[in-house]
């Protein structure tokens, strides 16, 4: 596949995934841009037939989201706030879900985004997140319970078990 085609297909979804993973527009755009640039840099290696550049770029983007989000959080705790950031804009359609996602630990939120939004199988989530399938199931299970409590709705269905 040509990089230009890959970029056209992957970029919009990657930005959205990063937004759901961080709930921060700046961090999301920054991480997606960096991941796609790294994919471009390494395209000779990751763009070959039989490879999975989409999974690769998701993994890199999530790693970047995680590290940059941590940096943002750490900085915001240490530094006086010199400007106002509208990090919960009213134009978002579902503030309950936004807040419920924000209350999840990072790994649980990532698992929810990959499994319930990107529709990845547990095994594929595990490959992207760099953890075992069992660990993904654990994150999903705990996230489901937390979301159900926060949203006041029944927990979403269990993911299809692998055995």
């Amino acid at each position, binding site marked *: 596949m040509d990089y230009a085609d890959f970029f056209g297909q992957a970029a919009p979804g990657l930005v959205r995934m990063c*937004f759901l993973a961080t709930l921060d527009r700046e961090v999301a755009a920054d991480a997606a841009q960096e991941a796609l640039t790294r994919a471009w840099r390494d395209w000779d290696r990751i763009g070959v037939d039989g490879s999975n550049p989409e999974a690769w770029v998701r993994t890199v983007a999530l790693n970047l989201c995680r590290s940059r989000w941590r940096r943002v959080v750490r900085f915001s705790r240490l530094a006086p706030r010199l400007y106002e950031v509208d990090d919960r804009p009213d134009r978002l359609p579902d503030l309950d*879900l936004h807040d419920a996602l924000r209350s999840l630990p990072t790994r649980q939120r990532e698992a929810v985004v990959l499994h319930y939004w990107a529709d990845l199988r547990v095994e594929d989530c595990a490959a992207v997140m760099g953890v075992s399938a069992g660990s993904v199931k654990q994150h999903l299970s705990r996230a489901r*319970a937390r979301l159900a409590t926060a949203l006041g*709705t029944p*927990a*979403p269905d269990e993911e299809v078990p692998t055995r």
Partner: protein
Amino acid sequence: MNELHERLDALSRAGSEGLRVARPDIDAHRLRRKVWLPVGALAAVIAIVVGIVVWQAAGGDGGDEVVTTDRSTTPDAATDTSAAPPTTAASRTPMVAFAEGTGGEVGEPSTLRIRFIAPDGSVIADRAWSEVQEPQPGMPGQVIASRGLLQRVPVGRTRIEIRSTGSGWTCITTVTATPDSRLIVGSKEGDLVGDAGACAAVTSVDEMLAMSSPVPAAARPYLGMTAAEAEAYAKAQGTDIRIVSDNGLSRVVTMDLRPDRVNLTLYDDRVVTASLG
């Protein structure tokens, strides 16, 4: 699940509205390839020429001298492992690794007990998660686990009872082992869902390998090595390595991306897969 998907979808659309990422310069990419491909080809030609010159200076192909080597009686052939990594013979004893939580996380000593029970009801082993927990220096009463708990089991079905003597939480799961099985059981103690079907997750090393990315060439030498062998090999190569998972227990690791670092996954003190990053 559909409702959650739709709500997430709507949130992601609204949240990323107006965000744009720029495509890297494709022309520059082509230029880079145009520049580097000839340079690479030239370097390869020079390397081949230099190699031929050095080989001939060292005596070429040895002329008419015939050298035979009986590998079965050559001591070096039997003992020298420096040229190639040790290979792992397939395990013929089924193994189960039990893992709880995340490796490297500091916490209280665990009260989990894991009983492995044969189909006839006899107890194969009665183990404790605290066996793999180690005291944390400078933090009295705090412990960490850095690897899963290994247990050999017979071929066939084995019932595994996981019980917390502290909270009374109990989980029962069953695994079916073949002679080469390398299974991983992850418990979910404290899980709010916690029903019998979801209180433990069972997977295997083979499943883990099937969904892993192919091992890069630079990391392949580590496959099959013990942790000690891998450390020695890495030291000799001047390479940084780290263990990211041991006996099914994923460790807390930094998420920085370092293309020259080798990440090792161990099972039963053997590297089963490796990656760079």
